[in-house]
């Protein structure tokens, strides 16, 4: 699929130069790296200037969390509306991951991801899909844990996962790729992507009491 689509223009935000170099090398020629930044301020400025398709964003930057970059770029206006964010980080607390997703990132992958998988994830995000790593799927399942009895949903549309979405997330957590999930559930890969994007939307828009409580328990306001 990467061959038909034009090369996505990628921007790297990470405070470790070595890591940026490594990612550059791994991405190779499949994407065009248009710039990099090591902190919140330069990232906001350069992203506004170069307008990349996808920003690979570290969760922890010297002057704050990655979500600062997302919200600043989001509020910058029309020009940057097409910029998409993929959080790329390592060993993070759930509250940090959920914060960056709720700020508007299209997905979260861990830095231990292999090169081809990362390229695949970048293409997916560039196409407007969501990318869930097993760990993020675990966080989301945990956050949306099914206990409707004591946790009434305010907005059933947003506050609960459908059985199908839950199934998809479980398979992601079990280490299945989208293609394998599609085969397993006898649906198309596109449908898997639709489910995942729906989950992402719920995660971002839900004001679910449960999600709030789950986050509060982990010190996220």
């Amino acid at each position, binding site marked *: 699929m990467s061959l038909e689509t034009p090369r996505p223009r990628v921007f790297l935000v990470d405070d470790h130069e070595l890591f940026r170099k490594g990612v550059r090398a791994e991405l190779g020629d499949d994407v065009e790296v248009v710039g990099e930044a090591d902190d919140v301020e330069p990232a906001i400025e350069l992203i506004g200037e170069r307008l990349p398709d996808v920003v690979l964003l570290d969760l922890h930057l010297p002057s704050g969390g990655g979500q600062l970059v997302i919200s600043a770029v989001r509020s910058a206006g029309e020009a940057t509306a097409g910029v998409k964010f993929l959080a790329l980080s390592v060993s993070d607390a759930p509250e940090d991951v959920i914060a960056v997703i709720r700020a508007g990132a299209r997905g979260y992958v861990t830095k231990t991801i292999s090169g081809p998988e990362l390229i695949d994830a970048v293409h997916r995000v560039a196409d407007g899909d969501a990318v869930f790593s097993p*760990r993020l799927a675990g*966080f989301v*399942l*945990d956050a949306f844990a099914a206990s409707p009895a004591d946790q009434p949903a305010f907005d059933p549309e947003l506050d609960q996962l459908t059985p199908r979405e839950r199934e998809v997330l479980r398979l992601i957590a079990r280490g299945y790729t989208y293609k394998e999930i599609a085969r397993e559930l006898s649906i198309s890969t596109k449908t898997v992507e639709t489910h995942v994007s729906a989950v992402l939307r719920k995660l971002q828009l839900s004001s679910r009491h449960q999600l709030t409580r789950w986050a509060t328990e982990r010190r996220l306001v």
Partner: protein
Amino acid sequence: MGGRGESDLWPVEPDTGWSRAGRRRRGHGHRARDRGPIRRSRDERLLAGVAGGLARRLGWDPTVVRVLILMVSLSGFGVAVYVLAWLLIPADGETEPIASRSLADRRGIALALAFVPVFVIALLIGAALGASWISSLAVPAIVSAAGLILIWRNADPTEQAFLHRAAAPVLQLAQPADGSGRSRRLLLRIVAGLALLVGGLVVLLERHSARATFRPLAGLLLIIAAIVTVVGPWWLRVARDLVVERQARARAEERAELAARVHDSVLQTLALIQRRADQPQEVIQLARAQERELRSWLFDGTGPAAVGDQDSTFAAGVRRIQEEVEALHGVTVDAVVVGDCELDDGLRSLLAAGREAAVNAAKWSGAPVLSLFGEVEESSVSLFVRDRGIGFDPSAVPADRKGIAESIRGRMDRSGGTVAIRSSPGAGTEVALTMLREPGRRARSARPT
């Protein structure tokens, strides 16, 4: 704050950075009664730490002990007892009291003995004037003075530094006046204090007339004012110094603990990685193990020691499988756990079977990465072990692998669980283990690993 340093005296755990941290955490803020020999407290002290040590031994609040000591001190004897305690009780972390060191200090002993004639003279004067209060005060005063001399000369360096600081104004006064505003102010204060003291004593000792019931009260007030004038600012400074010293020590401890932890974990791992730079698989393993350890410290507040031999929850058990299989078989294990609950016998069998499956996959599949996914639901707990390795045809299982499958299956069957093994050549293998939960146990939410 009661007794934070006490456990330093009786280390009961192996002295690693982690257990040091554990001790500190437990030691903090409890006021439990302490067994073992009494020691002068270093953390909880205003003067020598006698009250702090006593409070720790008795399990009381140090302030209560201090007030009691102060009340006893009013007679004069309390002061002497305090000084003797200072002399005879070792400080935290020491085995010998100042007194045993003083035995070797001939000059100090000579100086202390020099008070004997002073004592005799004081007694004589007391007898001559018919003022019994002089002789009754003489004993504790002499004992205290002699004790203080020995302490002054033989205390350990930190205590001596403290004494010097405390006595600085007095020493300063003894120096030839350099005319600086500071010593002039001090002189003024002492003169004013002495005037107040004399005034107070005169009022107090005057023959009381009938209407002067208030006189003793006024005298006392004057004496107190005198003490405050002379000693107040000095005492404030000493107290402030003590606080600063205590903070500095706390910071140093914190730093030492951090350094120990970083050394035990990160630096060790980095050294190992450098030595094994030519073995990428081992380097990855080391890095991952270190990452997990650091993460659990930073985000969960637990060291590896806290995981313990007996895992008590399902998530901890899955984490242990992840660690063990990574360490023993050199594969990367991605573990995700949703929800958590206490372990019972059924879940222990589930974990044992899961471990078997993971080891099996690590050994045979040839895949560099395994996925572990555990989910705790209301009515059941499931564990999935998946690899993308060579896979096999379940209908044509080789004999040796059948045995392992049986050990997984047998284990689950005996505990009332179910096993589903799916595999096909080239597409990898997935083992799905499910165990029904005992009714009445609710899921407890926990973060995924």
